[in-house]
């Protein structure tokens, strides 16, 4: 239960600039998702907040207190590591008990047992409690790793791709569980993911990182409807936004080099002729792969469409995004 503030934070590993002057305020009780491709600096951000690495520049504060010089224990953060980092010589139960057995906390044994049982239940690993931590599947290890964070009640949760190795159903279950745990406890949570659905459904705020820079920070809706750049626009949306030369359609502003079209920004039935190349029926929606003068476009149409490959569909932009030559959005 604390606000996390990063001001001009920078971190280099040798010649690699992992983070470059990142400024971000994570409001108390918010669920912040960090997005960005591999190597963007997401893990580095979490490690700096946790205090596992120290920033080269800038200030980090938790609950209005500058944490420079504080150890991870003093910062009271719980971290779910990308590579799990379970205690290999301990059982699953002992792994989950470990944070509670801290002498600082003095948790009574009955309370520890109750808490561990409860968390194991949520994560569906009750039947594995007496396994050794190394005798687990990847997804089970990942859940133990989440559990080790959840048994505590820290000021800030830091989760690094916590659901990445789970199957679709479990992932959907845990998405709901994590969100409700966070909402009920009022804890602040920073969450790294590559999964758009997680970002859209769980986040109160999304931060987009690009090569160590925070390029946009806002609500998921804000990010979706008002991306600041081609890069930010490409983070969210399924199917991905179509980026095309601005001259393909008429009416682009002078400086515009590219036009960005999400499916709902493509109006079908009027405008330019495009060729249907492929029809993907996903059940609840159907995706059209179109070809407009040798430019591929992916859009969505109603689930029971009669369109078939070889047909012609007319399309026209509707409130599109325009970007200049550097990829920045033109308002």
């Amino acid at each position, binding site marked *: 239960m604390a606000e996390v503030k990063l001001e001009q934070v920078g971190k280099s590993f040798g010649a690699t600039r992992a983070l470059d002057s990142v400024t971000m305020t994570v409001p108390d009780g918010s669920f912040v998702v960090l997005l960005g491709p591999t190597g963007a600096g997401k893990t580095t951000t979490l490690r700096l907040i*946790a205090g*596992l690495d120290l920033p080269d520049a800038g200030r980090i504060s938790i609950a209005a207190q500058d944490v420079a010089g504080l*150890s*991870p*224990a003093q910062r*009271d*953060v*719980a*971290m779910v*590591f990308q*590579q799990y*980092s*379970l*205690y*290999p*010589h301990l059982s699953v139960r002992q792994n989950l008990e*470990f*944070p509670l057995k*801290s*002498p*600082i*906390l003095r948790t009574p044994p009955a309370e520890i047992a109750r808490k561990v049982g409860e968390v194991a239940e949520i994560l569906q690993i009750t039947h594995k409690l007496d396994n*050794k931590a190394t005798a687990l599947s990847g997804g089970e290890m990942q859940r133990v790793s989440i559990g*080790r964070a959840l048994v*505590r009640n820290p000021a800030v949760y830091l989760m690094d791709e916590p659901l990445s190795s789970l199957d679709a159903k479990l992932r959907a279950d845990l998405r709901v569980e994590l969100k409700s745990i966070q909402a009920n406890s009022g804890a602040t949570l920073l969450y790294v993911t590559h999964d758009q659905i997680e970002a859209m459904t769980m986040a109160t705020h999304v931060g987009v990182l690009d090569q160590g820079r925070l390029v946009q920070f806002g609500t998921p809706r804000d990010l979706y409807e008002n991306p600041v750049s081609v890069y930010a626009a490409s983070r969210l949306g399924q199917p991905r936004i179509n980026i095309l030369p601005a001259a393909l359609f008429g009416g682009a502003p002078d400086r515009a080099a590219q036009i960005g079209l999400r499916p709902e920004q493509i109006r079908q039935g009027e405008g330019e002729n495009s060729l249907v190349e492929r029809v993907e029926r996903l059940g609840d929606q159907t995706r059209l792969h179109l070809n407009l003068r040798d430019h591929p476009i992916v859009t969505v149409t109603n689930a029971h469409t009669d369109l078939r490959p070889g047909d012609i569909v007319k399309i026209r932009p509707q409130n599109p995004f325009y970007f200049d030559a550097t990829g920045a959005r033109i308002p």
Partner: protein
Amino acid sequence: MTFTPIDKAARATPPAMARRIRGLSDRTIAWIFVAPSIFLLLAVNIFPLIWTIRLSFTNFRVNRPNNDVEWVGLRNYQRILTDEGTWATMQATAHFLIWTIVLQVLIGFALAFLINKKFRGNDLWTTIIVFPMMLSPAVVGNFWTFLYQPQIGLFNYVVAFFTGADPASFSMIGDVMLAPWAIVIADTWMWTPFVMLICLAGLRSIPNSIYEAAECDRASKWRQFWTITIPMVLPFLMLAVLFRGIENFKMFDLVVQLTGGGPGNTTTLTSIDLKREAFEKWRTGYSSAYAVILFVTVFGLASIYVKALNKVKER
């Protein structure tokens, strides 16, 4: 067409032989490959062992091959186990074993723990520390006799410097109370680096991310040491104890060079005693029984220990 070495070998084999080889089953071929090793093992290990057990029931003396050999039953065993000299030897061995292991494990682990911290030049320090281990035990024994010299020995001088005693007032090798410690100190000096290397391997096998997780889980350095470092290094430590235990049970050269088993019999370890019985007094039957007793003891202890070690590793 290209020829691999195998094709060439196949072509070079005379047809009659090739036919015979083709008729062999995989099992037969496996036996053919293993047979030389099995033969060697039988010849140099198993046969001498059985022969020793046989001799241990006789009064055979290898320096008098023409004497009649008598079966004496269990008399050799009885004499050994009731002989006070043997028990004194066993005690000296136990003292040597226990103290070398305790000291080497404690100091070796402490050194490994320090060297494992990231500081400049720790590789250089490792090389320096490991140096004694590379020397010949006879050489080490020899120069420790100089270090222990009451008048000019560096060891006595250093002890005197710290305690204020007269360096000439005590002799590590000449004193019945001190001699057992003299061999413990020399062996510890020589072999602690070995234990350190094994501990270092153990410490390096613990990934840093586990300490990071513990750090986030608010475990103090003290708790991390006892709940992570020690349990994860324990299999390595136990292995070091096993190696040192077996090595020091056989200890011979260093101690012979240093004290020659004296003064009196205070540093006569079982291996030294056994060598005297067998090759100075030439009591072959008696010493065979002695060897069998030692073999059973070591084998028994080692198997119990290895079981425990495996249990620790499985945890």
